[in-house]
């Protein structure tokens, strides 16, 4: 490993850490605007695919609230509609990570790379939100609610997997994959300096 390589890589890492507090702060404050496309996608897909379950979707800050047609039974014979809240921040923390990496790389046309990554990440945020909602009604809320959804066993398994994958893997892996794809010239230069 050569000194220029060490300096380049160390410089990149230091700049990422310098940018992370800034990008996290912007992401948190601007979440209602930044995550609007993901919320819109989740609403459109949700209302199209599960029109018989989702009556409406409300947005407040970075939270989506799915108003459903599912009924919560009660002893007195009265019942209320099930409402499920989903926090979009839980599925979008890859955005500030990606932004910090792009800004730290200092490559030409960085705004374009930033916008590209943002556009790629939005559907995955929508995935996380929808999978969270489906997991809540099909699994977390118990058999009384799950039976109203009409999901069969394999569908509940698929929902559980989608939720886990959408919560534990996609939010962090997708930003890194997009960054590697959009920064090939930088990696090439780093490799040249590594002397390997």
């Amino acid at each position: 490993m050569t000194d220029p390589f060490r300096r380049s890589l160390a410089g990149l890492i230091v700049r990422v850490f310098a940018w992370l507090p800034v990008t996290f702060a912007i992401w948190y404050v601007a979440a209602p605007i930044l995550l609007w496309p993901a919320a819109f996608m989740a609403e459109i897909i949700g209302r199209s695919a599960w029109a018989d379950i989702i009556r409406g979707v409300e947005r407040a800050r970075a939270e989506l609230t799915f108003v459903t047609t599912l009924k919560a039974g009660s002893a007195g014979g009265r019942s209320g509609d099930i409402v499920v809240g989903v926090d979009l921040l839980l599925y979008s923390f890859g955005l500030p990570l990606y932004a910090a990496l792009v800004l730290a790389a200092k490559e030409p046309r960085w705004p374009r790379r930033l916008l590209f990554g943002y556009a790629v990440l939005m559907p995955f945020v929508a995935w996380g939100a929808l999978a969270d909602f489906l997991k809540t009604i099909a699994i977390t809320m118990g058999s009384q609610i799950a039976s109203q959804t009409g999901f069969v066993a394999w569908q509940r398994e698929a929902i559980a997997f989608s939720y886990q994958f959408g919560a534990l893997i996609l939010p962090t892996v997708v930003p890194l994959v997009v960054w590697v794809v959009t920064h090939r010239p930088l990696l090439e230069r780093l490799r040249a300096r590594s002397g390997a």
Partner: protein
Amino acid sequence: MLRFFTTFILLQVALFAAELTPWGQHYFVVPWTDTVAAISAWLLTLFDPNVAAAGKVLRSTGNGFAVSIEAGCNGIEATIALVAAIFAFPASWRDRLIGLGVGIVAVQGLNIVRVISLFYLGQWSMKAFDWAHLYVWQALIMLDVLVVWLIWVLMLPREGVAGGSPTGPAGGSPAPASA
């Protein structure tokens, strides 16, 4: 490039699915998580006698605060990402094993720092704990995976990446000799 990402995604999905099976949970995830908790507790007791571990739970015997190490906090998903990225990349088996050995130690080492920091953050402020737990540490652990993988890829012998560098891998033209 296409072959690398296709293999990476397939490996990632397969390993993650294997982790979620009852067999994967019983024989791998639970013992791994218990080990992370035990190592964290052992490290903590070196300078704080008021710490006890039971299974995946770390508890302060002083104020009763406890953290349970759950999926996403045991470092397994980050390790899966690293394993998939290293195996998807064209390299010799020797280089892969070295990358895996060093990389897993680096990822799990940082994960133990995460567990210990969350244990104390939670006793100080639950708001700070939630922020660090849900957003910041998740990003930092995966950033660690990226850095480890980058160092490994960039240090590979030239012939180990022929036709397979992230900057010009399989299916495309070979990486320039000087690059």
